[in-house]
């Protein structure tokens, strides 16, 4: 038995009903190394990690820690063997401080002062920046993640598992995290990191293990491989990694938004004085850290949220205050993929057929719904987008993430919209499905549709979008040409360190060839303000 092995998995198999999530997976993690686990969606990465951390129990196979076979049947067991997992969604108590969250669940007696000092000790050892007395509700996403990592370190974890830690971070924050991880490696900790982003895999890991459809493919040394090879192993076939940017002639502005302010559910300002416009045949990207007003912006455009100030005009006509149905009828389609990926736009327990007619069920006459046409549309969509499904009558929640999103985006496009507002359309999708979605969007762009693309992955946005607007705390930090900007510049703008609008003293987002004159815009805004006043009264 090799002493340098921290964790070894042998022939691990896990099934959920008929679905085989993991089949005969073998994996070794050496002491003091960073191992990346790479795989498409549904390839069983998270399931595998959940078995190591005691959330699931494997049907077959063995787990060895430091050369000894162990049984991990609960998270307590995992903790006993010094395994700590940092989940994709943070599990913290908002009204507790960092230190309180860290000691939560530790059954020993503790003195909060000592905890504070120990937390700070750990933080300074690995180069974290954290205030142990800060409340979680006051924290930014990256700080919450830091708390999660310190939580497992505090319990003495030697093996750390991070599930997609960079998905919520800006490029600068990612760099910081990687520095911390490297320091931990030097300290002899073993780290497993799950990520979709190939460049990060290349940057941080020593070795890469690849899973495909639940099966173990190979483990390679990072220095001996490249992104292309990894992708091929992951997908199982050659694939072109370049995202195409369809070149089109831009039309007049389709959707114009001026000085828009929106409040969130809690009454706080979520979007402040934002102006932008989308032309036909253009993809405008919106970059920003999670929760900086993207959702509210989408909802306001779709007519689901009241605006506080400003104007939204479609082809020169105000759409402020119109019911959602009328906005849909004007050809403005909104598809927002929330974190659970099913919440808005689809009904998860409905069949594909029933989901197809969500927007059109009321168009035919009489009291009955027309399922025949919907079924035909569903069949066409399945053929056109190569949706993998047993039948048109399968509930969409049974489909894999990629296919669910294809149904949603596909249906939106079937209604031949002229403006598409889409938020996180490739959220959690694997490479193949993501490219399918990018192609759909590019096709629409070529048809002269204006697209507002709210995304997470800056690399993708730089490649796909024509222009990128950056939001920070609901403010427009500037609109840049994708060809002329860099990831670093976008990162700085996202965190608010760089405000192009201020630096260049330029007002962004007001089209010169607008449908309306300045005077008309002012009238519009005044009118909307009155409307708002009446609503409140």
């Amino acid at each position: 038995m090799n002493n340098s092995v921290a964790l070894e998995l042998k022939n691990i198999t896990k099934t959920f009903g008929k679905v085989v999530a993991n089949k005969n997976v073998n994996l070794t993690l050496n002491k003091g190394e960073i191992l990346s686990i790479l795989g498409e969606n549904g390839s069983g990465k998270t399931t595998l990690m959940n078995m190591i951390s005691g959330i699931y129990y494997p049907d077959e196979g063995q787990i060895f820690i430091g050369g000894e076979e162990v049984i991990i049947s609960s998270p307590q067991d995992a903790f006993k063997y010094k395994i700590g997992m940092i989940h994709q969604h943070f599990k913290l108590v908002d009204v507790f401080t960092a230190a309180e969250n860290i000691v939560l669940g530790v059954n020993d007696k503790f003195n909060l002062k000592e905890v504070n000092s120990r937390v700070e000790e750990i933080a300074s050892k690995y180069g974290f920046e954290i205030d142990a007395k800060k409340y979680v509700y006051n924290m930014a996403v990256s700080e919450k993640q830091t708390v999660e990592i310190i939580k497992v370190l505090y319990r003495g974890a030697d093996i750390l598992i991070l599930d997609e830690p960079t998905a919520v971070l800006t490029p600068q924050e990612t760099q910081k995290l990687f520095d911390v991880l490297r320091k931990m490696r030097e300290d002899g900790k073993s780290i497993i990191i799950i990520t979709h982003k190939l460049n990060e895999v290349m940057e941080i890991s020593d070795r890469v293990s690849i899973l495909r459809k639940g099966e173990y493919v190979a483990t390679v040394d990072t220095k001996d491989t490249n992104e292309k090879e990894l992708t091929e192993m992951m997908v199982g076939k050659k694939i072109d990694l370049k995202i195409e940017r369809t070149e089109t002639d831009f039309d007049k502005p389709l959707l114009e938004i001026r000085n828009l302010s929106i409040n969130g559910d809690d009454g706080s300002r979520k979007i402040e004085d934002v102006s932008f416009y989308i032309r036909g045949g253009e993809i405008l990207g919106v970059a920003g850290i999670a929760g900086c007003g993207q959702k509210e912006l989408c909802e306001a455009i779709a007519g689901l949220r009241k605006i506080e100030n400003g104007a939204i005009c479609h082809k020169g006509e105000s759409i402020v205050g119109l019911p959602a149905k009328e906005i849909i009828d004007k050809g403005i389609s909104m598809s927002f993929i929330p974190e659970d990926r099913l919440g808005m736009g689809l009904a998860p327990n409905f069949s594909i057929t029933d989901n197809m007619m969500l927007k059109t069920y009321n168009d035919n006459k009489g009291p009955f719904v027309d399922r025949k046409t919907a079924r035909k549309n569903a069949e066409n969509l399945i053929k056109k987008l190569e949706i993998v499904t047993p039948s048109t009558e399968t509930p969409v929640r049974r489909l894999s993430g990629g296919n669910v999103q294809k149904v949603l985006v596909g249906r939106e496009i079937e209604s031949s919209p002229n403006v598409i507002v889409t938020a996180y359309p490739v959220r959690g999708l694997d490479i193949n499905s993501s490219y399918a979605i990018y192609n759909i969007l590019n096709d629409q762009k070529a048809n002269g549709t204006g697209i507002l693309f709210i995304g997470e992955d800056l690399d993708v946005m730089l490649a796909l979008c024509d222009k990128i607007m950056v939001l920070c705390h609901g403010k427009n930090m500037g609109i840049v040409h994708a060809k002329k900007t860099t990831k670093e510049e976008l990162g700085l703008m996202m965190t608010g360190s760089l405000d192009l609008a201020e630096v260049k003293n330029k007002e962004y987002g007001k089209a010169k060839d607008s449908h309306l004159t300045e005077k008309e815009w002012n009238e519009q805004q005044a009118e909307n303000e009155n409307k708002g006043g009446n609503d409140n009264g």
Partner: protein
Amino acid sequence: MANNKTIHEPLLHIVKRDNISIAKKISIYAIAILVSLLLGGIICSIVSPRGNVGKFFTSLYEGCFGTKRKTWLFFQEFSLLLAVSMALIVSFKMKFWNLGANGQILMGGLASIACSYYLGGKINESLLIVLCVLSSMLAGAIWAVIPAICKALWNTNETLFTLMLNYIASGLVNLFIAIWVTGGSGILNPLAYGKLPEIYNKYLLIVLFGIIITIIITIYLRYTKHGYEISVVGDSPNTARYIGINVKKVIIRTLILSGIICGIVGLLLTSGMSNNISADKAGNRGFTAIMTTWLANCNPLFAIATCGLVVFITKGMEMVRPTFGMLDDTISNLVIGIVYFFIIACAFFVQYKIVFNAKTTAILNKIATPFIWVYDKIKLGVLFIIEKIKPIFNKIVKKENTEKEDK
């Protein structure tokens, strides 16, 4: 392997089933019901010297279908429970937990009886009946729409709201009885006017109502735009909002429908039967229907099965009690409880399966071997007997045929 430590593998773990065939699902439920009834039979035979398990099953059957009258009563009760279940299905499908069917039934009955009490004899009898029907529908709808409006406008919690309205409704019934009955007996005598006409006999009207309302609700939920909207609101309110469904309108409209059905049930229970009212007239059907609806997974066709089962057991136990010489209903309630418990526990086995570790599986197999052996022998025996009987049977059939030809 260099380690000598014994490893404590967990005895069993629970795995979620992916998809279960309908045949398997039905057989799981069928087995559960049979086992629970068997258990009930054994308990009854132990408690009472008068009966045995066989007698238990025959009394169950006789309690439901023993006489013509009992059969009619069975179907009457079945229809009433089914109708209330339909009222609940439309609102449960929308994830609006209407626990107030009892109150809605009572209000429907109260409205109808109030019409008969105040207007009986003063206006034309058929006009009075029309008024009774309309007022019961209206009262049921009002009792259901109050929590619906509050939910739609202020997002109040409907479970508590509808539940509390039950008690207000029974309070109101008691109040009116106190006003109407002056003797202090607290029992309202059957009224002379406003009794619903009979079709064929006094049960058929109610049975017809149950059948018709089930058909209507099945079609309504499955094929109409309204039904589609209900499902969307229930499945994903965000999506409903986004595609332009007026969620508030759908909630209010659906609860009006739910209340109307309950109101009519109230009418049938009062003006359709003894033509009087008391606070326990609803007979807890509003609560029993919650269970039948839930077990039927809000599917109107499944509800036929669950309602049938529940009525079968309740009616059957009413017969078991005197047969077994039980003085009170403790034991019969116990048996009903066992059956319900088994059915509800089944949901676990339908969704999950239990996987034992290798050692336990081996032990279980060893234990099961004699049973499997016996099962196999029985199977062989049955097959053998069938083989033996076949030629005899064939001969008889042939004989009959030749006899016929002879004639």
